[in-house]
């Protein structure tokens, strides 16, 4: 039961129910509402059309790769930040947060300048003679993944750093005093303690990336359509709203399943700390 303070959240809850959940209900209704009563035909169509299924698989793959890239970059970054003196950590934190101040559109377009045929990366590589033909970085899955990882990274670093800061330094010192090398201390004490937070943040990232639209639209050149882009086509161009509703519902169900795992991990983390 909510306490006295909790009741104050009721207006907000009501707002959510009306504005968000009510419309979501409409979406669900549209996905099963055929011309002759209830039907699963749209789900069937979404499932059996090879192209749509492929977009679903592509979305999962790109999301997964972007998440892994973020973990590989973000974990060392957060670990390094944890070891900094407080003022310098605040400064680095500002740098990480700064990407939030720049519109996602601007950041995405900036990648065109960096990754294009005549972009920064290719020009440098060509000038140093490492390659002869420009690499295809833009308008491909590589470009989309890089762009997504860029947008997602702060969402990993922030919660991860918070969790890492909660890890008691005395545990690490105890391990050292018992003769563990720095490497052993990290892998056998620090890393396991940070693992639940890493899992939770990674899942959060994965869920976020399932809904990406702008980045694949701009950096994919129309060749790396993810679910968001497919839905845009179905809603705005071909006007197949029931099919779009069915695909959205399936995506929502999938995200909820991932969310259930997220909640479990979160609970595990809380009981541990």
């Amino acid at each position, binding site marked *: 039961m909510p306490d006295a303070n909790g009741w104050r959240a009721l207006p907000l809850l009501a707002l959510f129910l009306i504005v968000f959940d009510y419309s979501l209900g409409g979406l669900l209704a549209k996905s099963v509402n055929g011309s002759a009563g209830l039907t699963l035909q749209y789900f069937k169509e979404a499932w059996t059309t*090879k192209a749509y299924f*492929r977009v679903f698989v592509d979305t999962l793959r790109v999301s997964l790769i972007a998440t892994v890239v973020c973990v590989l970059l973000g974990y060392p970054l957060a670990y390094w930040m944890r070891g900094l003196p407080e003022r310098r950590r605040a400064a680095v934190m500002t740098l990480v947060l700064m990407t939030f101040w720049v519109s996602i559109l601007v950041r995405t377009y900036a990648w065109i300048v960096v990754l294009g045929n005549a972009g920064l990366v290719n020009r440098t590589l060509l000038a140093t003679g490492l390659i002869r033909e420009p690499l295809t970085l833009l308008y491909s899955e590589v470009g989309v993944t890089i762009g997504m990882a860029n947008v997602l990274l702060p969402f990993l670093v922030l919660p991860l750093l918070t969790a890492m800061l909660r890890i008691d330094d005395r545990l690490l010192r105890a391990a050292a005093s018992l003769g563990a090398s720095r490497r052993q201390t990290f892998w056998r004490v620090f890393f396991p303690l940070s693992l639940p937070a890493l899992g939770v943040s990674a899942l959060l990232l994965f869920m976020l990336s399932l809904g990406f639209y702008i980045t694949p639209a701009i950096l994919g*050149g*129309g060749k790396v359509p993810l679910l968001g882009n*497919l839905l845009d*086509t179905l809603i*705005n*161009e071909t*006007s197949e709203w029931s099919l779009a509703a069915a695909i959205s519902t399936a995506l929502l169900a999938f995200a909820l399943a991932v969310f259930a795992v997220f909640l479990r991990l979160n609970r595990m983390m809380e009981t541990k700390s």
Partner: protein
Amino acid sequence: MNRRDFLLSAPAASLIVASPKAFAAGPTSIRLIDSGGTTGESIAAAYIPPFTEKYGVRVIREAPSSLGKLRAMVESGRINAALFELGSSTLAQARELNLLEKLDWAAINPDPMFPEARDDYGMGYQYFSTVMAWREGNKAPQAWADFFNVQRFPGKRCMSAYPHYTLAFALLADGVELDRLFPLDVNRAMRKLESIKSHVSVWWKTGTQPLQLLKDNEVQYAVTWSAGIEREPGIRSTFNQGMYDIAWLVVPRGQDPATKDLAMKFLHEVTVAKNQMVAAKVLPLSGNSPQLEGLLGAKAFQSFPTAKANLQAQFKQNAQWWQKNGPEVNKIWSNFLLNA
């Protein structure tokens, strides 16, 4: 607006709502949803000022104008735009979905205009062409057969992500005659497109993309709108085997009579040749007046889609065919693109 302003303005607002006088005066503004970009700017420069001057009614523009947006507006019953821009095949689709208000041509009382721009449910307000363009320094293609020939014309391509601006060109490249294009042989077009697919870097969704990609040397050959190319240094294009099409203004269904009346008055301004000349300065595209070529002069008009020589070199988009076959082709097409 801070809280105090809000408290102060709230009673004032309710007064306005309650006052029958204010209501009887009719709308003080109407909304127009256009496709944005330079097209929107040309509307803002050419047609809105004379309308506002005559009737004292402001026009608020919004972009972009997708079929989905129109459908959501009409089906939800919250009609918040008096005018809406559509392409020729989306016009046909919108008619089919019963989303449009019938135009009152007597009330519009148009100046002389091309008869093909006059529809029961829409006014063709802008002629635009889809053509081939390339970067200088690359071999100049003369026809779509050249554009599709990646051995003799090496380079990356940029083509439209919409089948309406792609399929016909593939057929021309495969040897179909200009006047025998429609009905389109979809399978033959798709086979031809398969052959060039791996050379297409980008499938564009907005008309500004191909020009930018040509400028950045990201692609060397592109399918693009004709407007604005001749102003770009280093980019060449030809109207040869190009396609011209008409963009339409429509009125979403469920309009209150006062607003619809204003929409008709606005559409009249769109037919005035003098106003179209202003639009042509912003964007070298033709309005619906046959007098435009005479007014602007043949020389200034040669980069316009409806210049005589250009019309002869091109074919006209067939919206009726697309209306009938659009849904089917869209399925085949999205399969093709999604597996790109």
